[in-house]
């Protein structure tokens, strides 16, 4: 085989029905970049419309990209693509996990793993370089993810990286995860692994990833990269005034400062000032524990952890001795939603419980929930599970749909009192599919159908449901006006898109951000100040296309979309400008395939258009504008101010969108992609431009191609 750079050149294919293990050539898919892009191509080619997520014919693709394993900052991500059980039409979708699995997979010589079929009995997949075996997992079945990882490690050694499902995945709970490391969860596809009787994948590699380009050029690029990287979510401004900083923002994730410690480390480690010129302190900038919990988390923090090749480290690794009271290991790790979703289930708040003061309870409660969700492998649908529960409980619906004895067996008094041990009962019912209550984890769409949620649920702002497909708001209009709102319209699950937020949320002053927006998108009007939105324009549409494309690009390269793209920098001498061409520069140097920023963006638009085509084929709908891209009503309803009066859209103080303006927005985004402006469906010309005449032909044969 000819030498390959960036890519290992090999895709591992495993058919669990036949036991056949084979190798495919990565580079035949290279127009689709890697990771998510290539997975979309495989799903289009190989999974027919009408296949359901838990059917053996469904495939699950674990993908890395050409930058993974090269040492590019934040490149340790795994993209997982399959049909999504919680989606009403089982829409193709991707979930992502960090940790060290992806790089280990590359070091073992594989770019991707494509799993199909269904094993007769529980199995796990053992990958040691080019030695691949399907192993018996009957003893692992029924175990939580922590034990499963330990069992795999007992066979393969502690260097092995393990991705596994817990009981939730085994029991085909729609809201379940695949997890690696101690806290890296890909939400949504755990049940797909379960349906294939695949408990875990262990991987150990002794190889390396080769880089095509000149070493010096690589080192220079790395230096440039480190001059633009900020803290988590590419926030480039510290959370408190610092001698080196011109700006600060209390809501920044750049929390490092003098006098702030990883308090449970031995000895405690001070984060220090974290001057952005000091490369040694990049990993101290994001003291995420205090960001997620508040100052009380300092004493519990052992250190910050994260994914391979990531200098940022956004996962808080805590020592919470109180956990041992519940038979849990006192070490617990997570970030963002991992902590927030148990808090969401405790929607009445977490108060002092079991001898914990209210301040300590604010850490101990989410820690209990995170530990359970991570072991059982339960997903939260980006926090929506808590709001679904809140609606069902507060409207009295739960009392009606649950048998009386089941309802009475749930410790509601704990929920009411803010006692977080309620979570022990909650996650157990969910993971083991106990009773009617467990349907809370079917996913919002299926749950709402089953329990007959009313329009007040879908249209009420408080429940934050973005789409009738049953996924919630995720960096939408509340943060990014039409840009965020439109980004959320194109997903088959919560948008999981941070391309726009890693710019909008940089915490730089709005005037400066608008200048930078002008340079990237052609006009400062691409960006509005928060809660001061102006009507839609073509520059915002460009911003939307760019964000959708970049997210696809990052999940294909694979780099972390919770950091990339690098639109801004913390350095004043760079005028706070980042470098949006870094992905293309790294890609070209790593692979030896020279692509400009524009060309790589076009490759990403190709992948996104293919995703759109799969969605269309799955839905069997000609008009995606109507059938797919609409929001729930609260998004476009005028909000009321404190005085009870409606605040007109596009005046200061409201995040509400306006229906006509959103329709214009859809049209402008379709135009940017070259899709049909009426229906939002990819056109023949667009598909042919991207070299996908076969896709156009297929859609035409189904009567789905716009005329």
């Amino acid at each position, binding site marked *: 085989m000819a030498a390959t750079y960036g890519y290992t050149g090999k895709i591992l294919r495993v058919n669990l029905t036949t036991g056949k293990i084979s190798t495919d050539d990565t580079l035949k898919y290279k127009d689709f970049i890697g990771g998510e892009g290539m997975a979309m191509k495989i799903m289009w080619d190989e999974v027919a419309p009408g296949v359901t997520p838990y059917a053996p014919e469904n495939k699950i693709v674990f993908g890395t990209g050409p930058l993974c394993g090269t040492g590019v900052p934040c490149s340790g991500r795994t993209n997982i693509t399959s049909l999504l059980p919680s989606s009403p039409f089982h829409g193709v979708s991707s979930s992502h996990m960090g940790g060290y699995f992806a790089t280990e997979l590359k070091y073992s010589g594989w770019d991707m793993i494509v799993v199909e079929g269904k094993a007769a009995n529980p199995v796990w997949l053992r990958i040691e370089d080019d030695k691949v075996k399907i192993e018996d997992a009957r003893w692992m079945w029924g175990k939580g993810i922590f034990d499963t990882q330990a069992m795999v490690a007992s066979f393969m050694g502690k260097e092995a990286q393990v991705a596994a499902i817990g009981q939730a995945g085994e029991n085909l709970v729609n809201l379940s995860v695949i997890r690696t490391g101690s806290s890296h969860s890909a939400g949504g596809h755990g049940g797909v692994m379960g349906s294939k009787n695949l408990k875990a994948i262990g991987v150990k590699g002794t190889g390396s990833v080769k880089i095509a380009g000149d070493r010096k050029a690589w080192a220079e690029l790395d230096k440039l990269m480190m001059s633009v990287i900020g803290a988590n979510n590419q926030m480039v401004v510290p959370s*408190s*005034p*610092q*001698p*080196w*900083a*011109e*700006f600060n*923002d*209390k*809501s920044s994730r750049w929390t490092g*400062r*003098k*006098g702030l410690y990883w308090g449970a480390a031995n000895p405690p480690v001070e984060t220090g000032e974290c*001057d952005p*010129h*000091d490369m040694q302190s990049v990993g101290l900038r994001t003291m995420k524990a205090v960001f*997620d919990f508040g100052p009380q988390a300092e004493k519990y923090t052992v250190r910050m952890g994260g994914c391979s090749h990531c200098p940022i480290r956004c996962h808080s690794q805590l020592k919470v001795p109180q956990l041992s009271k519940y038979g849990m290991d006192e070490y617990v790790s997570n970030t*963002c*939603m991992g902590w*927030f979703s148990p808090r*969401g289930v405790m929607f009445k708040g977490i108060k002092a419980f079991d001898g914990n003061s209210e301040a300590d309870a604010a850490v101990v409660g989410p820690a209990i929930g995170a530990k359970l969700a991570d072991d059982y492998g339960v997903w939260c649908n980006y*926090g929506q599970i808590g709001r679904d529960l809140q609606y069902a409980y507060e409207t009295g619906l739960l009392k009606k749909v649950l048998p009386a004895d089941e309802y009475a067996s749930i410790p509601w008094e704990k929920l009411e009192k803010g006692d977080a041990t309620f979570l022990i009962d909650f996650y157990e019912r969910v993971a083991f599919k106990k009773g009617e209550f467990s349907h809370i984890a079917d996913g919002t769409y299926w749950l709402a159908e089953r329990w007959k949620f009313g329009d007040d649920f879908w249209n009420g702002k408080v429940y*934050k449901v973005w789409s009738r497909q049953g996924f919630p*708001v*995720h*960096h939408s209009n*509340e*943060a990014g006006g039409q840009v965020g709102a439109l980004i959320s319209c194109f997903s088959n699950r919560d948008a999981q898109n941070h391309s726009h937020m890693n710019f909008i949320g940089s915490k730089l*002053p*709005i005037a400066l951000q608008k200048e930078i927006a002008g340079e990237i998108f052609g006009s400062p009007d691409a960006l509005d*100040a*928060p*809660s*001061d939105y102006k009507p839609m324009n073509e520059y915002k549409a460009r911003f939307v296309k760019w964000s959708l494309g970049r997210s696809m690009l990052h999940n294909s390269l694979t780099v972390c979309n919770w950091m990339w793209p690098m639109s801004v920098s913390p*350095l*004043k*001498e760079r005028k706070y400008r980042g470098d949006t061409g870094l992905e293309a520069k790294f890609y070209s140097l790593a692979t030896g395939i020279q692509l400009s920023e524009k060309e790589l963006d076009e490759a990403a638009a190709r992948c996104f258009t293919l995703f759109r085509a799969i969605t269309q084929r799955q839905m069997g709908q000609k008009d995606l504008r109507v059938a797919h891209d609409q929001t729930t009503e609260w998004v476009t309803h005028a909000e009321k*101010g*404190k005085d009870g009066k409606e*605040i007109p859209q596009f*005046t*200061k*103080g*409201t*995040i509400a969108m306006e229906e006509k303006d959103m329709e214009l927005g859809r049209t402008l985004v379709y135009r940017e992609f070259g899709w049909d402006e009426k229906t939002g469906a990819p056109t023949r010309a667009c598909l042919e431009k991207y070299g996908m005449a076969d896709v156009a032909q297929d859609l035409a044969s189904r009567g789905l191609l716009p005329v």
Partner: protein
Amino acid sequence: MSDQHAKNRNSASSHAAEAPAPAAGLVAAIRGASAEIRLTRLTALRSDFPEAAAREGGVELLLEESGAADLRRMAGEGGEAYYFSADSMTEAYALHLFRIEEKDPVRLVADTVRDDSRIYPRPTDVRVFADPPFSLPAREVAEVVARMEMRPDTADIKSGRASNGALYLYSDRFLEAAHAESLIEWIEVGQKENP
């Protein structure tokens, strides 16, 4: 001394040729204090360098003519002035220290709030004043907020609460009430629910 923008202290030094002998001690004292993230008061320089203070034009003229391009001066109340080296801290940070040194907590809070409302623009979480570098005792922050309501020179400073009860301040010179209310809720509640 120069008015050009502060360079970062880790970037190439903006020191001009070493200051001439009579000013050298003054410049070194200011740079030394700045390296420890402190401002240097004019009155302190006068008492530490009596000979320089006795010259015509005094300490101020000596520094003016020192050629030390990194030095900055901020004029305070009652003829006091403060010096710092922009190689060690930004002007924005020095301004915080200046307001702290001036020992008028009401003005400190009001001016900081005004800056936030003007520059970003955003409302200010009152809890920031209990944290470094301000480090005002929580009770004092509450008193300041109460006093601001009475003082005509802080009449533009308004307060608002998020749905979780957190108190924020803003200046209505730069932020309209409805806009500020919306931002308060977003910063305090919405952002955290949407991580």
